[in-house]
């Protein structure tokens, strides 16, 4: 059994949330559109919301068990929850905020997160990245057994986001706690998590490592979320071929014997040292200069060519 083990069901407005998940000393990200029930999972673990049925166990101890009528209050659950907008107490200084979680290790935590110089400042007067660190220090002050993050990077601007993402990556590796991150951003998930769970309409569609999600997407939704092209009409009825942009090649003429999709070429933009183009709705990543080499230009008819071999097919 995993350190954090949950199997819960909870009726939401338009669907039932059903999630079974085990998290060991690793980071798992729940990714999905807003309204998929991701935050509800975190709230259930933290005890802020009661599932209709199921159980939640941490380190072999039941935090919630419908059968056994166990439902610990939030304060009895050893959990560090970092809220989306951090939920720092505006009437307390940074030090008081951190000490609220546990007074014993305040100085150590302020030091560790490089916020010692802000100790006497109110959280309203500091930057978003600094608030993030205060929220983290406060969550850790309790010495939690489980760490939960609700959209940890969404409140930050692009520049700060990159920095904080890297900090968070290092921190989570250091802590080695069972960590659950909720995000709608696949990039945050891939940067921070060992395993990624894709949630749609309260349902965990697929849970696995990034290569699994890329190579064997469970359905069209998972495939699209990883940035893959989902191409109907190339396989059987109610099926689609999934191809990642870097697996496709570009051609000016219809190639013989290969599966290909025609479309107008547009959206030629650099991506790293390669170029990202679109053929109709299909995204293809090609080497720089490839477009010119093929004698193509923006607006010209072109073909997105699938690699040889059996295609990756998902149900629609």
């Amino acid at each position, binding site marked *: 059994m995993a350190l954090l083990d949950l199997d819960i069901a909870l009726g939401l407005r338009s669907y039932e949330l059903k999630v079974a998940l085990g998290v060991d000393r690793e980071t798992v990200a729940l990714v999905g559109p807003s309204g998929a029930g991701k935050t509800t999972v975190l709230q259930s673990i933290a*005890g802020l919301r009661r599932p209709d049925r199921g159980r939640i166990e941490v380190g072999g101890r039941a935090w919630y068990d419908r059968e056994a009528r166990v439902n610990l209050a939030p304060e009895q659950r050893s959990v560090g929850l970092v809220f989306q907008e951090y939920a720092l107490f505006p009437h307390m200084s940074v030090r008081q905020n951190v000490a609220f979680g546990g007074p014993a290790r305040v100085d150590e935590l302020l030091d560790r997160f490089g916020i010692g110089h802000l100790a006497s400042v109110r959280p309203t007067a500091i930057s978003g990245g600094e608030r993030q660190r205060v929220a983290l220090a406060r969550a850790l002050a309790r010495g939690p057994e489980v760490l939960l993050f609700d959209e940890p990077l969404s*409140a930050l601007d692009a520049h700060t986001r990159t920095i904080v993402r890297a900090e968070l990556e290092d921190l989570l590796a250091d802590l080695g706690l069972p960590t659950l991150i909720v995000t709608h951003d696949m990039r945050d998930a891939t940067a921070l998590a060992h395993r990624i769970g894709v949630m749609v309409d309260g349902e965990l569609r697929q849970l696995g490592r990034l290569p699994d999600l890329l190579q064997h997407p469970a359905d069209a939704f998972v495939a699209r979320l990883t940035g893959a092209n989902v191409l109907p009409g190339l396989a059987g009825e109610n099926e689609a071929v999934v191809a990642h942009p870097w697996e496709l090649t570009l051609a000016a003429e219809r190639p013989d014997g290969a599966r290909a999709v025609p479309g107008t070429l547009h959206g030629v933009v650099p991506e790293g040292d390669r170029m990202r183009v679109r053929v109709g709705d299909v995204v293809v990543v090609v080497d720089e200069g490839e477009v010119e080499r093929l004698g193509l230009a923006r607006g010209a008819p072109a073909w997105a060519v699938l690699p040889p071999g059996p295609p990756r097919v998902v149900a629609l």
Partner: protein
Amino acid sequence: MSDISVGRAAAAALSALIAGVVLTFLALPIIALFTEFPLRDVPELLRDPFVQDTLKVTVRTNAIANVLIIGLGTPTAYLVAMRRFRGRSLVITLIELPLVLPPAVAGIALLSAFGVGGLLGPTLKDAGIVLPFSQWAVVLAVTFVASPFYLRQAITSFESVDGTLTAAARTLGAGPTRTLLRISLPLAASGLLAGWVLAFARGVGEFGATIIFAGSVRGETQTLTLGIYEVLDSNFDQAIAIGILLVVLSATVLLSYKLIISWRSSTSTSPSVFARTS
């Protein structure tokens, strides 16, 4: 000058005139209170044993009433603000009702509930308690008419405390009581204070319910406002002196209320304060 600008000037003059009349009407009685009567005699008149008695009754009864309003009103407001239950809007309407109830009706209502022949009269009599025309009747009357001012404001203040902050406190190991004391109360404090200032002002000015339910017994139930009524015919100067005392008190209360409100908006805890800044 064109017709249009003449029209505009006339409209501006007319509205200025109306505003002037309104302001004069509102200010004149207050000015008259201070000018119709030699101000230097006020301290002397306030030292009069009669005024001293009414002042003592007012201070005593209002102190008790305000302790009751805050002591019992705060937990009640917290409960109503935090819980969603069936009939909640009915409860809130009930709380607000005394605000719009004519004070005389409040007095009659209190009499029918706690009077000797009233709803609880026999029960209270058996317990040896006779409320009407006692100091406690004043306390009850003041509490009845003034508490809605505090309750209403307190409910709104507790409701406006960001729920994620209290949730955060819980996940950080604080139980409901510690969350209330360390998070909800401090964040709602300025709102509670503003509500209390209003309740206090209403309580000190209470007249109608008190005279009906508690009567006007010197040294027992006769408050400052009842005192004014008592000496109105016999000693008009003294009535004015009490009036000046109450005006000064009311103005102080109003001023502190405004200060609290402006201080509140400057230390607001709205989420916008937490908007991204970096």
